């Protein structure tokens, strides 16, 4: 085999795409051929130089363009997602306004409870927060697919 053919194999070798048997023959040749060793070094150097390039990031506008286009077909998507959800989730699912209303009730209820029970009528912030956190998952579960 000529050096040119070995050099084509070098390219496959650095891509990890060379069969074991071919690799063995190539390594034997490399041990005897300075020109092909130099090519291997230069291939690896080229790879390192290419890798120095920082990949450009997708602009934010792409999010808006893609995701807004998608929301037009949202009805279709919603149907698929409902199919994929667990039974319990499907059975208790409800619309956003209803979920928000229930969360609001929890919150108001929590405030009422804390104002009745807290001593000295001080604003009991930590307790309110606890009620709020308890109510949150309900909003998240039921309002998960806007």
């Amino acid at each position: 085999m000529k050096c040119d053919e070995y050099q084509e194999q070098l390219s496959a070798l650095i891509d990890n795409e060379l069969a074991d048997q071919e690799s063995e023959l190539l390594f034997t040749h490399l041990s005897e051929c300075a020109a092909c060793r130099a090519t291997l070094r230069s291939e690896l150097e080229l790879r390192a130089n290419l890798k120095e390039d920082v990949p450009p990031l997708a602009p934010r506008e792409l999010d808006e363009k893609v995701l807004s286009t998608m929301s037009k077909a949202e009805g279709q998507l919603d149907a698929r997602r409902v199919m994929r959800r667990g039974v319990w989730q499907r059975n208790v699912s409800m619309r956003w306004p209803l979920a928000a209303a229930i969360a609001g009730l929890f919150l108001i209820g929590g405030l009422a409870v804390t104002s009745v029970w807290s001593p000295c009528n001080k604003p009991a912030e930590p307790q309110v927060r606890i009620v709020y956190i308890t109510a949150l998952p309900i909003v998240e579960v039921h309002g998960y697919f806007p």
Partner: protein
Amino acid sequence: MIDGGQSFVHVYHRYKHRVYAYCYRLLRHPQNAEDAAQETFVKIHRSLDQLENAASLQAWIFSIARNEAFTILRRLRPMEELETETENVWDEENPLEKVVQKERAGIVQHCLGLLKPMYRELLILKEYEQLSYAEISQVTGASESAVKSGLFKARRAMRKKLESILKERDEI
């Protein structure tokens, strides 16, 4: 592979930067890259069902991105044979003038931009996206042996060009 619970939005966020970078590196133009990436995801969204059966998710995604990028290239260069293998891998000649002052990695990028799109694409898919030859073959429609020899030709040309540019630069 995609499972039933994975949504389009998940795929979008996982691949948006890679798809954009691939389009950008291939087209070398931010707005064209954005258009190609946008169209790619619109197509992906339309074909979610196929997505679930794709042998390689990333190859499937890049094959769609490739179609979009090449559609733009064909529009920009209607007279050119963009996908025919040629002996000459260079898109333009004589990059020397512009690259004299740049660092080595900068020169490499410049040379990459001067490769014909089909050779440039092979290097992008291999070096940056790290696709296997089988996946690149799936993306480009070329055989695996054509991918192998194309990569070899692109790299050899890049090495030689780089060598000559660096030599010129050092002589200046």
